[in-house]
């Protein structure tokens, strides 16, 4: 099989972005054709199916994880059952460190069989920690990458679900009977911060 690979440098094609992208597409298509040419039709079909399944798995896990973190935005009204189809492994909650989430971006989803590790960049507006018999909350603005594990098995009815706390050992559920704020701060003020941060980023208010 002969493969024509056309490479354009930025100086070619009068510097047109479209032309450069066309060149990249040609290279990618060529590489793909070369890869396909190295395997038999049966292998090609198997490889395509495998890639398709992996892609589908990642898509399912990403979609579930996206729903999980979206539900965890701290300005949402807390309701019984809101994490019902999204979260499992309650025995792995440490429940002594909660972060109030304002925004997130899913960066990566790595799936293998019934397990997945998801990386997300989170924007946090308050840290809540257990202080003996009560919870102490301090407003903040932090952005960092965190990781969660997901599982999909018979116990989750074949659905991808987030398993326990973040790998970095914090939860995102707003919990606590006795939650105390420093003078001049409040849950209402933190929720207003979440709203204004989301508006500034062009995101909808989360309720």
């Amino acid at each position: 099989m002969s493969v024509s690979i056309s490479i354009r440098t930025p100086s070619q094609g009068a510097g047109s972005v479209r032309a450069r992208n066309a060149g990249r597409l040609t290279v990618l298509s060529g590489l793909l054709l070369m890869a396909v040419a190295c395997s038999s039709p049966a292998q090609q079909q198997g490889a395509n199916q495998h890639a398709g399944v992996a892609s589908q798995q990642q898509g399912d896990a990403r979609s579930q994880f996206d729903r999980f973190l979206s539900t965890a935005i701290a300005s949402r009204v807390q309701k019984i059952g809101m994490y019902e189809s999204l979260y499992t492994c309650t025995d792995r909650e440490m429940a002594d460190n909660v972060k109030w989430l304002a925004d997130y971006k899913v960066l990566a989803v790595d799936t293998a069989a019934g397990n997945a590790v998801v990386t997300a960049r989170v924007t946090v507006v308050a840290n809540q920690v257990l202080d003996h018999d009560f919870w102490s909350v301090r407003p903040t603005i932090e952005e960092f990458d965190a990781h969660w594990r997901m599982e999909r098995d018979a116990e989750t009815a074949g659905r991808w679900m987030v398993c326990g706390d973040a790998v970095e050992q914090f939860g995102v559920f707003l919990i606590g009977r006795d939650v105390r704020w420093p003078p001049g701060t409040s849950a209402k003020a933190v929720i207003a911060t979440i709203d204004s941060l989301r508006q500034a980023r062009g995101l909808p208010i989360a309720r």
Partner: protein
Amino acid sequence: MQPLDEGITVASYFATDDQVGGPHLSESSAELLCAMQACYREATAGEGLQVLAAAKNSGEWIYTQGGYQGGQEVPKDINSNVGDCTDFVWKASRTALLGTWVHSYANHLATGSFVGKNKLSPSSLGAHGFVEVSYENARAGDIVVRGGHAGVYEGNSTDPSHVMGYANNGAPATPQRDNHDGLTKDFDFGSVPGYEPHFFRQLVETPCP
């Protein structure tokens, strides 16, 4: 630190870093400490079996954290087997080692004091009646903690991914979910990605040498 198998004094066992260079004891308080001095040793294998038996004989528990996490659930009543997983292991230890494991319920530890970012230092753990032991040295009756769950280790694990403990199973009510009261029974505390089982042995009082 001195070997824990031997009887050691409360002063040497519970000395913490922040006590070093701290205020000196007055003569009267030093006399009081001498009068209150007690020695401790690790629970024996036989005592461990008694702890496990106490756990298994305690009957079915109702799992609750008494609304501590902000949900609606029944209050704790340890005498009536209504509590969470660490209440269960406290009661089993207390029942089996009554008279030598003297830690009151007010002094009992939650899982976050055993493992995780906020776990206690060895000396603080000792002051609450426990010392951590390795998987290889763990035996029946030790407390096993993985993540946010605790139970009484049943011993004889040959595979770290399968570590059976007897536990009061369930999940507390939160604003987002109802209480789940699971059965009081075996639970596999084996290692899973990100969560290793940790083992803790009771420190019991012993006559000072």
